[in-house]
């Protein structure tokens, strides 16, 4: 089995190839300037050529079994990995107003893939899919539902791939306690935009992300939760327009704003730089609060699992959380770290979807 994974980013299109269940990618690379509708085909062509040249037998067929595209947003219609079909494309097109930056790019990539490799299935992996199962009390905001006219206003999480895999891993560790459907798990995803979810069995109960990834914990450059009146104050006091406010909140806030310089999550936790102290304290404090809220939502706690590209920071966070989360649990809390690359997890999800499709075709 060989899968090509495409991750459309804001500046470049990341690609990687995974074979069978190897942890490491066979190939990895980036294509720049891929976002215009015309450049989709050129980008895919470039990727396929690169892969062809770097393969041991440049003349042989690439033999891709599938292409998976990871998308940050899939709204309510997409509740899991989805194999592209004409009806899926229609559904995706309807989502354009909700994710105007992401969906058109994905559509252009899909079109190019279908033109260049008609026979290879394309699978869509959505970061929001896991969170389509949140309950209303968690996903609703206390505003008039008609306030935002053109879409359903609700909360999602934006690291669904990590959270889902992390919880599978946590349940595996809890298997001896026969906790499967009722395991109470805090999933702490340590990415540049960290996100915490409380999960009961396989079902998300709370998540720190919001209607957009801006809400919740501060990120490396995004502000996280604010008093909503601060947005209004920025408009009123500084006369800023929405674009300008958006730029500051999404690129000049978070750890960067707190430290006064660009700094990564791991630098903040691992360096003793006094300039990073406030950023570290704010981050730790917000993580503690979010964990407390999650435990209250779950009504208990069995496991805490760290994932994300900074998953290993969990070893630094653990003593601090153990000291502050003063919980009376029946069993000691199980601590788990899922230190696997995101694209590896995407490849896993794509394979499951592919196998399901094959068995359905065999039956049909």
């Amino acid at each position, binding site marked *: 089995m060989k899968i090509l994974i495409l991750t459309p980013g804001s500046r470049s299109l990341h690609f990687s190839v995974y074979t069978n269940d190897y942890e490491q990618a066979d190939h990895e690379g980036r294509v720049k300037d891929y976002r215009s509708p015309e450049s989709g085909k050129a980008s895919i062509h470039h990727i396929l050529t690169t892969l062809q040249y770097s393969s041991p037998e440049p003349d042989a067929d690439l033999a891709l079994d599938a292409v998976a595209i990871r998308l940050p947003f899939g709204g309510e219609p997409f509740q899991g990995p989805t194999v592209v079909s004409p009806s899926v494309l229609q559904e995706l097109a309807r989502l354009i107003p909700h994710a105007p930056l992401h969906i058109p790019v994905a559509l252009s990539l899909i079109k190019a893939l279908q033109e260049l490799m008609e026979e290879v299935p394309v699978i869509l992996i959505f970061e929001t899919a896991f969170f389509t199962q949140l309950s209303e009390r*968690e996903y609703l*905001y206390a505003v008039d539902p008609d*306030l935002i006219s053109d879409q359903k206003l609700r909360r999602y999480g934006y690291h669904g791939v990590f959270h889902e895999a992390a919880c599978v891993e946590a349940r595996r560790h809890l298997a001896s306690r026969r906790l499967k459907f009722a395991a109470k798990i805090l999933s702490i995803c340590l990415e540049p935009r960290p996100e915490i979810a409380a999960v009961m069995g396989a079902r998300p109960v709370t998540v720190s992300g919001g209607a*957009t990834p801006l809400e919740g914990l501060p990120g490396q450059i995004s502000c996280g939760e604010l008093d*909503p009146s601060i*947005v209004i104050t*920025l408009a009123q006091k500084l006369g800023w327009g929405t674009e300008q406010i958006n730029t500051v909140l999404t690129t000049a806030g978070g750890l960067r704003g707190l430290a006064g310089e660009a700094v990564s999550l791991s630098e903040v936790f691992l360096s003793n730089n006094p300039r990073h102290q406030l950023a570290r304290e704010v981050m730790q404090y917000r993580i*503690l609060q979010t964990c407390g809220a999650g435990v209250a939502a779950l009504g208990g706690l069995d496991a805490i699992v760290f994932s994300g590209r900074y998953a290993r920071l969990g070893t630094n966070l653990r003593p601090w959380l153990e000291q*502050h989360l003063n919980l*009376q649990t029946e069993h000691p809390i199980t601590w788990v770290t899922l230190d696997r690359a995101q694209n590896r997890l995407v490849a896993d999800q794509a394979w499951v979807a592919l196998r399901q499709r094959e068995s359905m075709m065999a039956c049909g």
Partner: protein
Amino acid sequence: MNILVFNCGSSSLKYRLLSMPEGVELAGGEAQRIGPPTAQPSQIIHRVDGHEKIHILPMTDHAAAFAEVMKLLSQDPRLVPDAVGHRVVHGGSRFTGPTLVTEDVMKALRELKDLAPIHNPPAMKLMEACRQLYPRLPAVAVFDTAYHSTIPEYAHTYALPRYLTMELGLRKFGFHGTSHEYVAEEAARLLDKPMEKLNAVSCHLGSGGASLCAIVQGKSVDNTMGFSPLQGLVMSTRCGDLDPAVALQLLHQAHGDSKRVEKALNQKSGVLGLSGLSADIRDVLSHVASAPTGDDRIHQTAQVYLWRIRKYLGAYLAVVGKPDAILFTDTIGETVPAVRWAVCTGLEVFGVKLDPQLNASVSSWPCDVAAADSAVRILVVQTNEELAIARRTLAALHQTTTSYQEVVS
């Protein structure tokens, strides 16, 4: 000593004349519908010795209401105030305790007005009228934000660029401080602990505003309200927590009309906006009680309201670490057992265990509704902001006289 306490709403003025330090009420009441004439006339419900009388009087602003209240009090020679205590919502970063009102203080408050454009102006009008009409009557301003001045930097800092937070004074202030501090003192007394040793989560659940406060060693270390009273819990007409990107989207949709967005989030959201039925959560809860299953907006509203409290309760129990008690106060906190039950049940992991029967049968306050084997007490305490303000006023006056005497001697 008789202390006259004023508590301003946007169109109302509550007052109580208390004999201190006993805290006995001599008179009290409320001026209602202050402002330009409406279909119903403005009036004062005036109460002396427990007898109420309604006086229909034109009152176009809070200064006029103040003058009328003073007139009513002057009809009885026993009701002469020796000092006035003013509730002021926002003290900014400068006022961290009760403050004797002087011209300098008024000046500083006028500068602050910019920070709290919705909340402070009526109280400012009142204080100005008071200084003009009774220049020799000592007046003390008691701030809702003062108790929260001990919130540590990591909890009051928003993750925004420093030049912005400095320029605009953006930080968490926290509100309802007078009430949180008062019920914490009551709880410390009930638990027979010195206030400096009390660890608690205080839930001030009003029929209008609501906030939770994390208290460590008697001091506020966090509050769910933020830079303004808009952040945090779902309130009667305020949205509470909201993705900042949604606020931005609303601003975009309103073509930059920030006043409109401000009004929508402060006056048309929360329980009212979500339910489409009522701004009073009690109406929503009684609807749900009469039809327990359902998937309509009203059921959703009850769920969202309770869920938000529960999550913050968990967050603050974690922050406090080893809480002695959870405190419930104000209209909803004191009188709606279903709310206490819904947010406390299933929190054994925090050492919290509610006794459902005790909780359902609260008939006098204060009252402990925790099960006997609960590590954390659950106390239902009546708040008394006017009494708290009178106490602070008295303390501020004593302090001022003491320091004055020290200077003189």
